[in-house]
Protein backbone atom coordinates (compact mmCIF):
# COMPACT_ATOMS: atom_id res chain seq x y z
CA UNK A 1 0.00 0.00 0.00
CA UNK A 2 2.88 2.31 0.68
CA UNK A 3 3.93 1.79 -2.92
CA UNK A 4 1.15 3.89 -4.40
CA UNK A 5 1.81 7.36 -5.67
CA UNK A 6 0.68 10.36 -3.69
CA UNK A 7 -2.70 11.51 -4.92
CA UNK A 8 -3.87 15.05 -5.41
CA UNK A 9 -7.15 15.47 -3.61
CA UNK A 10 -8.44 19.00 -3.06
CA UNK A 11 -10.94 19.58 -0.26
CA UNK A 12 -12.99 22.77 -0.45
CA UNK A 13 -14.28 23.14 3.10
CA UNK A 14 -16.53 25.60 4.88
CA UNK A 15 -14.61 27.19 7.74
CA UNK A 16 -17.56 26.62 10.07
CA UNK A 17 -17.92 22.92 9.36
CA UNK A 18 -15.09 20.45 10.06
CA UNK A 19 -12.55 22.02 12.42
CA UNK A 20 -9.00 21.61 11.04
CA UNK A 21 -7.24 23.41 13.88
CA UNK A 22 -3.83 21.74 14.39
CA UNK A 23 -4.70 19.15 11.74
CA UNK A 24 -3.00 20.78 8.75
CA UNK A 25 0.64 21.38 7.87
CA UNK A 26 1.93 24.70 6.54
CA UNK A 27 0.91 23.89 2.96
CA UNK A 28 -2.62 22.95 4.11
CA UNK A 29 -2.15 19.18 3.70
CA UNK A 30 -3.87 17.05 6.34
CA UNK A 31 -1.21 15.58 8.58
CA UNK A 32 -3.28 12.42 9.08
CA UNK A 33 -4.19 12.03 5.40
CA UNK A 34 -1.40 13.65 3.38
CA UNK A 35 -3.10 13.21 0.01
CA UNK A 36 -5.74 15.74 0.93
CA UNK A 37 -5.13 19.47 0.61
CA UNK A 38 -7.67 21.57 2.47
CA UNK A 39 -8.83 24.97 1.24
CA UNK A 40 -11.14 26.73 3.66
CA UNK A 41 -13.84 29.17 2.57
CA UNK A 42 -16.33 31.28 4.54
CA UNK A 43 -19.23 29.04 3.46
CA UNK A 44 -19.68 25.99 1.26
CA UNK A 45 -22.18 28.14 -0.65
CA UNK A 46 -19.25 30.14 -1.98
CA UNK A 47 -17.94 27.14 -3.93
CA UNK A 48 -18.54 27.73 -7.63
CA UNK A 49 -18.99 24.67 -9.86
CA UNK A 50 -16.22 26.29 -11.92
CA UNK A 51 -13.84 25.75 -9.00
CA UNK A 52 -14.56 22.01 -8.99
CA UNK A 53 -14.19 21.85 -12.77
CA UNK A 54 -10.94 23.84 -12.67
CA UNK A 55 -9.45 21.55 -10.05
CA UNK A 56 -10.27 18.38 -12.01
CA UNK A 57 -8.98 19.96 -15.20
CA UNK A 58 -5.84 21.04 -13.40
CA UNK A 59 -4.98 17.44 -12.58
CA UNK A 60 -6.70 16.70 -9.29
CA UNK A 61 -7.46 13.02 -8.71
CA UNK A 62 -10.46 13.85 -6.60
CA UNK A 63 -12.42 16.69 -5.06
CA UNK A 64 -14.10 16.81 -1.69
CA UNK A 65 -16.54 19.56 -0.83
CA UNK A 66 -17.68 19.92 2.76
CA UNK A 67 -20.34 22.08 4.29
CA UNK A 68 -22.16 22.09 7.60
CA UNK A 69 -24.96 19.65 8.30
CA UNK A 70 -27.83 20.24 5.90
CA UNK A 71 -30.25 22.34 7.91
CA UNK A 72 -27.54 24.08 9.90
CA UNK A 73 -25.86 26.49 7.49
CA UNK A 74 -24.66 29.58 9.37
CA UNK A 75 -25.82 31.61 6.39
CA UNK A 76 -29.06 29.66 6.14
CA UNK A 77 -28.79 28.04 2.71
CA UNK A 78 -25.21 27.75 1.46
CA UNK A 79 -24.83 23.98 1.80
CA UNK A 80 -28.25 23.30 0.24
CA UNK A 81 -27.36 25.45 -2.77
CA UNK A 82 -24.03 23.68 -3.26
CA UNK A 83 -25.74 20.28 -3.04
CA UNK A 84 -28.32 21.36 -5.62
CA UNK A 85 -25.56 22.61 -7.93
CA UNK A 86 -23.64 19.34 -7.72
CA UNK A 87 -26.84 17.41 -8.40
CA UNK A 88 -27.53 19.69 -11.37
CA UNK A 89 -30.67 21.19 -9.87
CA UNK A 90 -29.58 24.78 -9.44
CA UNK A 91 -27.86 27.37 -11.62
CA UNK A 92 -24.95 27.55 -12.18
CA UNK A 93 -24.91 23.75 -12.45
CA UNK A 94 -21.88 21.54 -12.22
CA UNK A 95 -21.29 20.25 -15.76
CA UNK A 96 -22.76 16.84 -16.49
CA UNK A 97 -19.44 15.80 -18.02
CA UNK A 98 -17.69 16.03 -14.63
CA UNK A 99 -16.85 12.52 -13.44
CA UNK A 100 -19.04 12.27 -10.32
CA UNK A 101 -16.99 9.35 -9.02
CA UNK A 102 -14.10 11.71 -8.43
CA UNK A 103 -16.25 14.12 -6.42
CA UNK A 104 -17.59 13.66 -2.92
CA UNK A 105 -19.61 16.07 -0.81
CA UNK A 106 -19.77 15.71 2.97
CA UNK A 107 -22.05 17.57 5.35
CA UNK A 108 -20.41 17.61 8.78
CA UNK A 109 -20.40 19.78 11.87
CA UNK A 110 -17.34 21.27 13.57
CA UNK A 111 -17.21 18.29 15.93
CA UNK A 112 -16.94 15.68 13.20
CA UNK A 113 -13.30 15.84 12.11
CA UNK A 114 -12.91 12.10 12.63
CA UNK A 115 -15.78 11.31 10.33
CA UNK A 116 -14.16 13.53 7.70
CA UNK A 117 -10.83 11.76 8.12
CA UNK A 118 -12.49 8.35 7.78
CA UNK A 119 -14.47 9.23 4.67
CA UNK A 120 -11.56 11.09 3.05
CA UNK A 121 -9.32 8.08 3.75
CA UNK A 122 -11.80 5.72 2.06
CA UNK A 123 -12.13 8.12 -0.86
CA UNK A 124 -8.36 8.30 -1.33
CA UNK A 125 -8.22 4.50 -1.15
CA UNK A 126 -10.90 4.28 -3.83
CA UNK A 127 -9.22 6.89 -6.05
CA UNK A 128 -5.85 5.14 -5.88
CA UNK A 129 -7.34 2.20 -7.78
CA UNK A 130 -9.71 4.18 -9.95
CA UNK A 131 -9.35 4.42 -13.71
CA UNK A 132 -11.69 6.94 -15.30
CA UNK A 133 -13.56 5.51 -18.27
CA UNK A 134 -12.45 6.99 -21.54
CA UNK A 135 -14.05 8.49 -23.44
CA UNK A 136 -16.32 9.91 -20.78
CA UNK A 137 -19.94 9.93 -21.62
CA UNK A 138 -22.21 12.33 -19.83
CA UNK A 139 -25.32 10.20 -20.35
CA UNK A 140 -25.09 8.28 -17.09
CA UNK A 141 -24.57 10.03 -13.80
CA UNK A 142 -22.81 8.04 -11.12
CA UNK A 143 -24.49 8.29 -7.74
CA UNK A 144 -22.90 11.11 -5.86
CA UNK A 145 -22.52 11.21 -2.11
CA UNK A 146 -24.17 14.58 -2.27
CA UNK A 147 -27.52 12.85 -2.07
CA UNK A 148 -26.91 11.87 1.55
Amino acid at each position, binding site marked *: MNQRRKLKVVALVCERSVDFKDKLDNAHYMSECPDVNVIQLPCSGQIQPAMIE*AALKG*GADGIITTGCRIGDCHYREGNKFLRARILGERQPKLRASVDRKRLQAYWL*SALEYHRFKEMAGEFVEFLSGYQPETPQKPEKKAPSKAAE
Partner: protein
Amino acid sequence: MSQATTNVYAGIIAQFQRLTLFIERILNSTFSQKYNPFYYHGALPNFFLWVLFISGLLLFAYYNPTLEGAYPSLEYMTKQIPSGALFRALHRYAADGMMIFVLLHFFRVWFTDRYREYRILPWITGVILITVLYLAGLTGYMLIWDSESVALTYMTVNFLNSIPGIGSSLASLLIGGDIVTDYTLTRYLFLHLGIPASMLFLLWWHYLRITRPVTNAPLVLNLMLFGGLLVACGLWPVGIGEAPNLATPSASIEVDWLYMLPHGMLANGASPFLAWVVLLGIPVAMLLLPYLQKKQFRGQFAQVVNENCTGCSLCYHDCPYEAIEMMDRDDDTRFKRIAVVDPGRCANCGLCVGACAFKAIEIPRMNTERVFKEIQVALGSAQS
Protein backbone atom coordinates in the same frame (compact mmCIF):
# COMPACT_ATOMS: atom_id res chain seq x y z
CA MET B 1 -16.03 47.27 26.48
CA SER B 2 -12.41 46.27 26.94
CA GLN B 3 -10.68 43.84 24.63
CA ALA B 4 -10.18 41.26 27.40
CA THR B 5 -13.86 41.20 28.40
CA THR B 6 -14.88 40.85 24.76
CA ASN B 7 -12.53 37.90 24.34
CA VAL B 8 -13.76 36.18 27.49
CA TYR B 9 -17.35 36.59 26.30
CA ALA B 10 -16.51 35.25 22.83
CA GLY B 11 -14.76 32.27 24.43
CA ILE B 12 -17.81 31.44 26.55
CA ILE B 13 -20.10 31.63 23.53
CA ALA B 14 -17.73 29.36 21.58
CA GLN B 15 -18.04 26.74 24.34
CA PHE B 16 -21.83 26.98 24.27
CA GLN B 17 -21.69 26.58 20.50
CA ARG B 18 -19.78 23.32 20.93
CA LEU B 19 -22.43 22.19 23.42
CA THR B 20 -25.18 23.01 20.89
CA LEU B 21 -23.36 21.07 18.17
CA PHE B 22 -22.90 18.16 20.56
CA ILE B 23 -26.64 18.02 21.31
CA GLU B 24 -27.37 18.29 17.60
CA ARG B 25 -25.06 15.39 16.83
CA ILE B 26 -27.06 13.23 19.24
CA LEU B 27 -30.34 14.46 17.72
CA ASN B 28 -29.01 13.77 14.22
CA SER B 29 -28.41 10.15 15.16
CA THR B 30 -31.98 9.74 16.47
CA PHE B 31 -34.08 12.04 14.27
CA SER B 32 -31.77 12.07 11.20
CA GLN B 33 -30.44 15.29 9.75
CA LYS B 34 -33.64 15.88 7.83
CA TYR B 35 -35.94 15.93 10.87
CA ASN B 36 -33.61 17.29 13.52
CA PRO B 37 -35.84 19.54 15.67
CA PHE B 38 -32.90 21.88 16.36
CA TYR B 39 -32.79 22.67 12.66
CA TYR B 40 -36.39 23.92 12.88
CA HIS B 41 -36.03 25.84 16.13
CA GLY B 42 -37.56 28.95 14.58
CA ALA B 43 -40.45 27.15 12.91
CA LEU B 44 -41.59 25.02 15.85
CA PRO B 45 -43.05 27.92 17.92
CA ASN B 46 -45.27 28.68 14.91
CA PHE B 47 -46.91 25.30 15.32
CA PHE B 48 -47.89 26.21 18.87
CA LEU B 49 -49.15 29.54 17.61
CA TRP B 50 -51.56 27.69 15.30
CA VAL B 51 -52.74 25.43 18.13
CA LEU B 52 -53.25 28.49 20.34
CA PHE B 53 -55.19 30.28 17.62
CA ILE B 54 -57.55 27.39 16.89
CA SER B 55 -58.15 26.35 20.50
CA GLY B 56 -58.47 30.02 21.45
CA LEU B 57 -61.21 30.58 18.89
CA LEU B 58 -63.32 27.89 20.55
CA LEU B 59 -62.74 29.31 24.02
CA PHE B 60 -63.52 32.81 22.77
CA ALA B 61 -66.86 31.64 21.39
CA TYR B 62 -68.09 30.65 24.86
CA TYR B 63 -66.33 33.20 27.06
CA ASN B 64 -68.49 35.77 28.83
CA PRO B 65 -66.37 38.81 29.81
CA THR B 66 -68.39 40.07 32.77
CA LEU B 67 -67.71 39.97 36.48
CA GLU B 68 -70.67 37.69 37.15
CA GLY B 69 -70.57 35.67 33.93
CA ALA B 70 -66.87 34.87 33.43
CA TYR B 71 -66.54 32.11 35.98
CA PRO B 72 -69.81 30.34 35.07
CA SER B 73 -68.85 30.46 31.38
CA LEU B 74 -65.49 28.88 32.19
CA GLU B 75 -67.27 26.26 34.28
CA TYR B 76 -69.67 25.60 31.42
CA MET B 77 -66.80 25.21 28.93
CA THR B 78 -64.93 22.88 31.21
CA LYS B 79 -67.77 20.67 32.37
CA GLN B 80 -70.60 20.84 29.83
CA ILE B 81 -69.06 21.22 26.38
CA PRO B 82 -67.73 17.94 24.95
CA SER B 83 -63.92 18.07 25.07
CA GLY B 84 -64.12 21.67 26.30
CA ALA B 85 -61.68 20.79 29.08
CA LEU B 86 -59.37 19.31 26.45
CA PHE B 87 -59.38 22.56 24.48
CA ARG B 88 -58.62 24.54 27.62
CA ALA B 89 -55.74 22.21 28.41
CA LEU B 90 -54.47 22.42 24.84
CA HIS B 91 -54.57 26.20 25.05
CA ARG B 92 -52.69 26.17 28.34
CA TYR B 93 -49.97 23.69 27.38
CA ALA B 94 -49.52 25.09 23.87
CA ALA B 95 -48.78 28.44 25.53
CA ASP B 96 -46.17 26.81 27.74
CA GLY B 97 -44.80 24.87 24.78
CA MET B 98 -44.55 28.03 22.72
CA MET B 99 -42.54 29.83 25.39
CA ILE B 100 -40.26 26.80 25.85
CA PHE B 101 -39.56 26.52 22.12
CA VAL B 102 -39.18 30.27 21.72
CA LEU B 103 -36.55 30.17 24.47
CA LEU B 104 -34.88 27.22 22.72
CA HIS B 105 -34.83 29.31 19.54
CA PHE B 106 -33.41 32.23 21.51
CA PHE B 107 -30.60 30.21 23.08
CA ARG B 108 -29.65 28.40 19.90
CA VAL B 109 -29.47 31.61 17.91
CA TRP B 110 -27.42 33.18 20.68
CA PHE B 111 -25.03 30.28 21.15
CA THR B 112 -24.43 29.74 17.44
CA ASP B 113 -23.59 33.44 17.02
CA ARG B 114 -26.48 34.19 14.70
CA TYR B 115 -27.82 37.26 16.42
CA ARG B 116 -25.75 40.32 15.59
CA GLU B 117 -24.69 42.67 12.81
CA TYR B 118 -26.76 41.78 9.74
CA ARG B 119 -29.13 39.81 12.00
CA ILE B 120 -29.80 42.67 14.40
CA LEU B 121 -33.32 43.33 13.12
CA PRO B 122 -34.59 39.75 13.74
CA TRP B 123 -32.86 39.87 17.13
CA ILE B 124 -34.53 43.08 18.29
CA THR B 125 -37.95 42.08 16.99
CA GLY B 126 -37.40 38.67 18.57
CA VAL B 127 -36.88 40.23 22.01
CA ILE B 128 -40.05 42.29 21.51
CA LEU B 129 -41.89 39.12 20.45
CA ILE B 130 -40.80 37.30 23.62
CA THR B 131 -42.07 40.22 25.72
CA VAL B 132 -45.36 40.27 23.83
CA LEU B 133 -45.75 36.50 24.19
CA TYR B 134 -45.13 36.86 27.92
CA LEU B 135 -47.85 39.49 28.29
CA ALA B 136 -50.26 37.42 26.20
CA GLY B 137 -49.74 34.41 28.45
CA LEU B 138 -50.09 36.42 31.65
CA THR B 139 -53.38 38.03 30.58
CA GLY B 140 -54.62 34.55 29.67
CA TYR B 141 -54.19 33.41 33.25
CA MET B 142 -56.10 36.46 34.48
CA LEU B 143 -58.95 35.80 32.09
CA ILE B 144 -59.89 32.50 33.78
CA TRP B 145 -61.40 34.51 36.62
CA ASP B 146 -61.48 31.94 39.33
CA SER B 147 -60.29 32.81 42.81
CA GLU B 148 -56.62 32.43 41.79
CA SER B 149 -57.10 34.88 38.91
CA VAL B 150 -58.46 37.41 41.39
CA ALA B 151 -55.36 36.91 43.51
CA LEU B 152 -53.21 37.30 40.38
CA THR B 153 -55.05 40.52 39.51
CA TYR B 154 -54.52 42.00 42.98
CA MET B 155 -50.89 40.95 42.91
CA THR B 156 -50.36 42.58 39.51
CA VAL B 157 -52.13 45.76 40.58
CA ASN B 158 -49.96 46.00 43.69
CA PHE B 159 -46.90 45.25 41.61
CA LEU B 160 -47.76 48.09 39.21
CA ASN B 161 -48.60 50.40 42.10
CA SER B 162 -45.09 49.88 43.45
CA ILE B 163 -43.74 52.02 40.60
CA PRO B 164 -43.45 55.56 41.92
CA GLY B 165 -45.41 58.18 39.97
CA ILE B 166 -47.02 56.36 37.07
CA GLY B 167 -47.77 53.07 38.86
CA SER B 168 -51.40 53.77 39.77
CA SER B 169 -52.24 54.99 36.27
CA LEU B 170 -50.77 51.81 34.79
CA ALA B 171 -52.80 49.74 37.24
CA SER B 172 -56.03 51.50 36.27
CA LEU B 173 -55.14 51.03 32.61
CA LEU B 174 -54.83 47.31 33.25
CA ILE B 175 -58.07 46.78 35.12
CA GLY B 176 -60.06 49.53 33.40
CA GLY B 177 -60.65 51.80 36.39
CA ASP B 178 -59.64 52.12 40.02
CA ILE B 179 -61.46 49.01 41.15
CA VAL B 180 -62.33 45.68 39.60
CA THR B 181 -65.56 45.98 37.63
CA ASP B 182 -67.14 44.48 34.53
CA TYR B 183 -64.76 46.64 32.53
CA THR B 184 -61.84 44.72 34.01
CA LEU B 185 -62.90 41.55 32.21
CA THR B 186 -63.49 43.30 28.87
CA ARG B 187 -60.09 44.95 29.28
CA TYR B 188 -58.47 41.56 29.91
CA LEU B 189 -60.22 40.09 26.88
CA PHE B 190 -59.07 43.01 24.75
CA LEU B 191 -55.49 42.62 25.97
CA HIS B 192 -55.52 38.86 25.49
CA LEU B 193 -56.75 39.19 21.89
CA GLY B 194 -54.98 42.43 20.96
CA ILE B 195 -51.50 41.53 22.22
CA PRO B 196 -51.31 38.22 20.31
CA ALA B 197 -52.72 39.93 17.22
CA SER B 198 -49.79 42.34 17.31
CA MET B 199 -47.55 39.28 17.05
CA LEU B 200 -48.63 38.85 13.43
CA PHE B 201 -47.21 42.26 12.60
CA LEU B 202 -44.09 41.62 14.67
CA LEU B 203 -43.54 38.24 13.01
CA TRP B 204 -43.67 39.90 9.59
CA TRP B 205 -41.01 42.32 10.86
CA HIS B 206 -39.06 39.40 12.31
CA TYR B 207 -38.92 37.76 8.86
CA LEU B 208 -38.39 40.97 6.90
CA ARG B 209 -34.68 40.66 6.15
CA ILE B 210 -34.76 36.93 5.50
CA THR B 211 -35.33 35.90 1.91
CA ARG B 212 -36.71 32.43 2.60
CA PRO B 213 -37.72 32.14 6.26
CA VAL B 214 -38.51 28.63 7.46
CA THR B 215 -41.94 29.13 8.97
CA ASN B 216 -43.17 25.54 9.07
CA ALA B 217 -41.47 22.47 10.44
CA PRO B 218 -41.98 19.08 8.73
CA LEU B 219 -45.36 17.48 9.42
CA VAL B 220 -43.83 14.63 11.39
CA LEU B 221 -42.28 17.02 13.93
CA ASN B 222 -45.54 18.93 14.28
CA LEU B 223 -47.40 15.68 14.86
CA MET B 224 -44.87 14.69 17.52
CA LEU B 225 -45.38 18.00 19.28
CA PHE B 226 -49.15 17.62 19.06
CA GLY B 227 -48.84 14.12 20.52
CA GLY B 228 -46.78 15.58 23.34
CA LEU B 229 -49.44 18.20 23.97
CA LEU B 230 -52.18 15.56 24.10
CA VAL B 231 -50.14 13.50 26.56
CA ALA B 232 -49.70 16.57 28.78
CA CYS B 233 -53.46 17.27 28.54
CA GLY B 234 -54.20 13.68 29.59
CA LEU B 235 -51.70 13.57 32.45
CA TRP B 236 -52.45 16.98 33.96
CA PRO B 237 -56.02 17.93 33.06
CA VAL B 238 -56.80 21.61 33.48
CA GLY B 239 -59.70 22.12 35.88
CA ILE B 240 -61.18 25.24 37.32
CA GLY B 241 -60.53 26.70 40.76
CA GLU B 242 -62.96 28.04 43.33
CA ALA B 243 -65.51 30.69 42.43
CA PRO B 244 -64.08 34.21 42.60
CA ASN B 245 -64.70 36.33 45.65
CA LEU B 246 -63.39 39.86 45.36
CA ALA B 247 -63.14 40.26 49.12
CA THR B 248 -61.27 37.03 49.79
CA PRO B 249 -59.12 35.94 46.83
CA SER B 250 -57.18 32.70 46.89
CA ALA B 251 -54.39 32.83 49.46
CA SER B 252 -51.84 31.36 47.04
CA ILE B 253 -51.45 31.04 43.28
CA GLU B 254 -50.10 28.18 41.25
CA VAL B 255 -47.09 29.79 39.62
CA ASP B 256 -46.38 29.16 35.94
CA TRP B 257 -42.79 30.41 35.92
CA LEU B 258 -42.82 30.87 32.16
CA TYR B 259 -45.48 33.56 32.39
CA MET B 260 -45.43 34.67 36.02
CA LEU B 261 -41.80 35.32 36.77
CA PRO B 262 -42.25 38.43 38.96
CA HIS B 263 -45.39 36.98 40.57
CA GLY B 264 -43.48 33.87 41.50
CA MET B 265 -40.70 35.96 42.97
CA LEU B 266 -43.18 38.09 44.95
CA ALA B 267 -44.96 34.96 46.21
CA ASN B 268 -41.60 33.70 47.45
CA GLY B 269 -40.94 36.87 49.41
CA ALA B 270 -38.90 38.98 46.97
CA SER B 271 -39.33 42.75 47.08
CA PRO B 272 -41.26 44.40 44.22
CA PHE B 273 -38.12 46.35 43.36
CA LEU B 274 -36.12 43.17 42.80
CA ALA B 275 -38.96 41.68 40.75
CA TRP B 276 -39.03 44.79 38.55
CA VAL B 277 -35.26 44.68 38.09
CA VAL B 278 -35.47 41.06 36.94
CA LEU B 279 -38.54 41.60 34.75
CA LEU B 280 -37.08 44.62 32.94
CA GLY B 281 -33.47 43.51 33.17
CA ILE B 282 -33.96 40.33 31.13
CA PRO B 283 -35.16 41.97 27.89
CA VAL B 284 -32.71 44.85 28.26
CA ALA B 285 -29.84 42.38 28.68
CA MET B 286 -31.08 40.48 25.62
CA LEU B 287 -31.05 43.69 23.58
CA LEU B 288 -27.52 44.53 24.72
CA LEU B 289 -26.00 41.10 23.99
CA PRO B 290 -25.12 41.83 20.32
CA TYR B 291 -22.96 44.77 21.37
CA LEU B 292 -20.72 42.70 23.63
CA GLN B 293 -18.70 41.41 20.69
CA LYS B 294 -16.84 43.56 18.23
CA LYS B 295 -17.92 43.47 14.62
CA GLN B 296 -16.39 40.76 12.47
CA PHE B 297 -16.20 42.47 9.10
CA ARG B 298 -16.37 46.16 9.75
CA GLY B 299 -17.02 48.04 6.53
CA GLN B 300 -16.74 44.92 4.35
CA PHE B 301 -19.41 43.76 1.98
CA ALA B 302 -19.77 41.96 -1.35
CA GLN B 303 -18.42 43.90 -4.32
CA VAL B 304 -20.00 43.72 -7.76
CA VAL B 305 -17.49 43.75 -10.62
CA ASN B 306 -19.50 46.05 -12.87
CA GLU B 307 -17.84 45.14 -16.18
CA ASN B 308 -18.47 41.41 -15.61
CA CYS B 309 -22.07 41.58 -14.36
CA THR B 310 -24.54 40.36 -16.97
CA GLY B 311 -27.63 41.13 -14.92
CA CYS B 312 -28.60 37.44 -14.77
CA SER B 313 -29.96 37.90 -11.20
CA LEU B 314 -28.76 34.50 -9.90
CA CYS B 315 -27.03 36.19 -6.94
CA TYR B 316 -30.15 38.23 -6.30
CA HIS B 317 -32.18 35.03 -6.01
CA ASP B 318 -29.60 33.24 -3.85
CA CYS B 319 -28.84 36.00 -1.33
CA PRO B 320 -30.34 34.79 1.97
CA TYR B 321 -30.67 38.30 3.43
CA GLU B 322 -32.18 40.28 0.57
CA ALA B 323 -28.97 42.29 0.36
CA ILE B 324 -28.83 42.31 -3.45
CA GLU B 325 -31.10 44.33 -5.65
CA MET B 326 -31.26 44.31 -9.45
CA MET B 327 -31.10 47.83 -10.86
CA ASP B 328 -31.42 49.20 -14.37
CA ARG B 329 -28.14 50.17 -16.00
CA ASP B 330 -27.59 52.60 -18.80
CA ASP B 331 -23.86 52.42 -19.43
CA ASP B 332 -22.28 51.18 -22.68
CA THR B 333 -22.98 47.50 -22.22
CA ARG B 334 -25.51 45.28 -23.86
CA PHE B 335 -26.88 44.28 -20.48
CA LYS B 336 -29.96 45.93 -19.11
CA ARG B 337 -29.61 45.24 -15.40
CA ILE B 338 -26.93 45.12 -12.75
CA ALA B 339 -26.69 43.71 -9.22
CA VAL B 340 -26.27 46.24 -6.43
CA VAL B 341 -25.35 45.29 -2.85
CA ASP B 342 -26.86 46.89 0.24
CA PRO B 343 -23.88 47.10 2.64
CA GLY B 344 -26.04 47.17 5.76
CA ARG B 345 -27.65 43.84 4.98
CA CYS B 346 -24.63 41.99 3.56
CA ALA B 347 -23.34 39.12 5.71
CA ASN B 348 -20.08 38.59 3.80
CA CYS B 349 -21.09 34.95 3.42
CA GLY B 350 -20.19 34.48 -0.23
CA LEU B 351 -23.39 32.76 -1.33
CA CYS B 352 -23.64 35.29 -4.15
CA VAL B 353 -20.11 34.29 -5.22
CA GLY B 354 -21.18 30.66 -5.48
CA ALA B 355 -24.18 31.70 -7.53
CA CYS B 356 -22.13 33.74 -10.02
CA ALA B 357 -20.87 32.12 -13.20
CA PHE B 358 -19.22 35.29 -14.52
CA LYS B 359 -16.76 36.29 -11.76
CA ALA B 360 -18.87 39.38 -11.30
CA ILE B 361 -19.24 39.44 -7.51
CA GLU B 362 -16.60 39.04 -4.83
CA ILE B 363 -16.38 39.12 -1.05
CA PRO B 364 -13.24 40.83 0.24
CA ARG B 365 -12.28 38.19 2.79
CA MET B 366 -11.97 35.35 0.28
CA ASN B 367 -11.45 36.41 -3.30
CA THR B 368 -12.42 33.95 -6.04
CA GLU B 369 -9.03 34.60 -7.60
CA ARG B 370 -7.42 33.42 -4.39
CA VAL B 371 -9.46 30.20 -4.30
CA PHE B 372 -8.40 29.33 -7.86
CA LYS B 373 -4.82 30.21 -6.95
CA GLU B 374 -4.92 27.96 -3.88
CA ILE B 375 -6.32 25.12 -5.98
CA GLN B 376 -3.41 25.56 -8.41
CA VAL B 377 -0.91 25.60 -5.58
CA ALA B 378 -2.45 22.42 -4.13
CA LEU B 379 -2.11 20.73 -7.50
CA GLY B 380 1.45 21.92 -7.86
CA SER B 381 0.71 23.69 -11.11
CA ALA B 382 1.04 27.28 -9.98
CA GLN B 383 3.29 29.52 -11.99
CA SER B 384 5.50 31.11 -9.41
